């Protein structure tokens, strides 16, 4: 028996020694992507703290500041507009912070929703087996081949039909989160179900069933730690997708409304000014989405490669 005379490694030592951390330190891209993502998150969530202006409070705006060029002072309030201002004198930088916050909220919540839904369905499918499993997996397969956009649009439309028009704006956030969330559960379900299929035949599950204890919670306890790695990879890539989808929906005009705009809504506004020369109203929100999407995707890609045992 290889005797370990050395003291048990501390958590910090174990983390430092872990393959994942080593791979992370080695990869400048991963580090850059991670830093960018964290930066954007912090700026967005603490928007009230960082933003020079309370961008979506009409009282804080001065119409005379409208259409200020980037890095110039507004004609009305003499405030420095680092990224310029839009038609109503709204500071683009601040608008960016608040808008990103909305985009990220939608992204994170919808991913959370998809995860919970997908993992649950995957566990059920794997545990129960038979017809139920086949049905769930079939639906998952079909859904995976359709763009999430179509499904989200459909759900959104149906929700709109069911919710009275005067409540549309206030419920927009929830509807979007659910719409995008429902469009993406399938990947999680597949992964979890594959793990579940392996586990359900194991002795401890059979034994539990025999005694009459529900095997499902016990199985879940064993599966979830193993499956967290791939789930995390899916979630990261999913997040980028969700943010982009939300932006697309808002761009179409069926997403976040003017009162609670996301980056997509901002782009929608900016588009009409592109041709008339106020390019900054469109460019900066667009750039933000691209950088955000890229950073998250890079992280997700890197994470997937790092977790793939065959590539080590």
């Amino acid at each position, binding site marked *: 028996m*290889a005797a370990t005379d050395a003291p048990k490694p501390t958590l910090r030592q174990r983390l430092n020694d872990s393959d994942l951390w080593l*791979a992370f330190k080695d990869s400048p891209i991963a580090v850059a992507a991670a830093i960018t993502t964290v930066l954007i998150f912090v700026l967005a969530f603490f928007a009230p703290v960082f933003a020079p202006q309370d961008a979506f409070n009409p009282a804080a705006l001065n119409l005379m500041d409208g259409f200020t060029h980037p890095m110039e002072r507004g004609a009305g309030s003499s405030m420095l507009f680092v990224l310029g201002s839009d038609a109503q004198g709204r500071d683009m930088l601040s608008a960016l912070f608040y808008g990103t916050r909305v985009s990220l909220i939608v992204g994170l919540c919808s991913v959370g929703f998809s995860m919970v839904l997908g993992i649950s369905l995957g566990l059920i499918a794997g545990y129960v087996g038979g017809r139920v499993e086949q049905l769930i997996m079939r639906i998952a397969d079909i859904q995976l081949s359709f763009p999430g956009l179509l499904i989200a649009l459909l759900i959104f439309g149906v929700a709109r039909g069911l919710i009275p028009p005067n409540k549309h704006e206030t419920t927009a956030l929830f509807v979007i989160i659910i719409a995008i969330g429902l469009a993406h559960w399938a990947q999680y379900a597949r992964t979890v179900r594959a793990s579940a299929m392996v586990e359900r035949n194991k002795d401890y599950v059979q034994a539990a069933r025999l005694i009459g204890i529900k095997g499902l919670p016990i199985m879940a306890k064993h599966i979830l730690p193993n499956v967290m790695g791939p789930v995390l990879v899916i979630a990261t890539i999913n997040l980028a997708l969700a943010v982009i989808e939300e932006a697309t929906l808002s761009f179409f005009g069926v997403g976040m409304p003017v009162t609670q705009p996301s980056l997509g809504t901002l782009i929608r506004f900016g588009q009409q000014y592109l041709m008339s020369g106020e390019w900054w109203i469109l460019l900066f929100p667009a750039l933000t989405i691209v950088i955000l999407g890229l950073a998250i995707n890079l992280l997700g890609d890197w994470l997937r490669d790092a977790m793939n045992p065959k590539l080590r």
Partner: protein
Amino acid sequence: MTQPVLSVRNLKVEFVTRRGTLRAIDDVSFDIAPGEVLGVVGESGAGKSLTGTAIIGLIDPPGRIAGGEILLQGKRIDNLDKESLRRIRGKRIGMIFQDPLTSLNPLFKISEQLVETIQTHSDMDAGQARQRAIDLLTEVGIPAPEKRIDGYPHEFSGGMRQRVVIALALAAEPELIIADEPTTALDVSVQAQIITLLKKLCRERGTAVMLVTHDMGVIAETADRVAVMYAGRIAEIGPVREVVQHARHPYAKGLMGAIPTLKATASRLVQIPGSMPRLTAIPRGCAFNPRCSEVFARCHVERPDTIKVGKSQVACWLYDTKKEAAA
């Protein structure tokens, strides 16, 4: 002495990983004479398969040959360019892998896979190549070869598939065959047939064989000489009878003692305590010293030279006739 078909001298194979450079094969040397069957045994992870892979030049990054020489008929092959190496493969050195199911491309007929191999290494046209393929199948014992040759791999049983694999490996008449666990994936009843077949074909052609396996029974039946590997090094190498019946290296002794035989009188199988060290934690001196029942001071300090004992060579200080005072 006739020139050996294969000569491996001080071979070192390393893997460059994030955690540092691991040496998987550490200074391994042996020869294989023409027509001889050399068995290579050891636990999983000892480096036996890797040695075969290194010889035929198929090590994938992050692994690489870090030192030593490999000579085929006296000429170095470890430093050849890609194309020269490719021409040697199949034509002069053949290799058989463990799992016949995954060794054959499921989407191509057997005839296609045979003919392309034959045509790569000769000038035959399609008709001649096909005929040769049928002849090969007859030799390996596939019944009704003219009919079955157009079948797909999944239409053959495990044993039949391995016969096809052997046919493919012998198609270009190589001088040496490296057989990497050729029977491990087969049913017990089929294993003997395949080994017998391999032995017969190679004897007929004078082909040398490097037989890598962890099945000592196969070695005892088939090999002329055997090398026992441990932690990337050779512990003992010698004529099969000598090593099996009178092993000298403590590890080899333990290995032979652990083979269950029909006339065993003891009720428990002999076990070697402990397990082979991981590549990141190979002990200083002799790699076996933590588990050796006859260990002494020198074993912890110096790595043993290969010492000639009888007709074998043993890497163990126990046999050092020029014993130094450091014992």
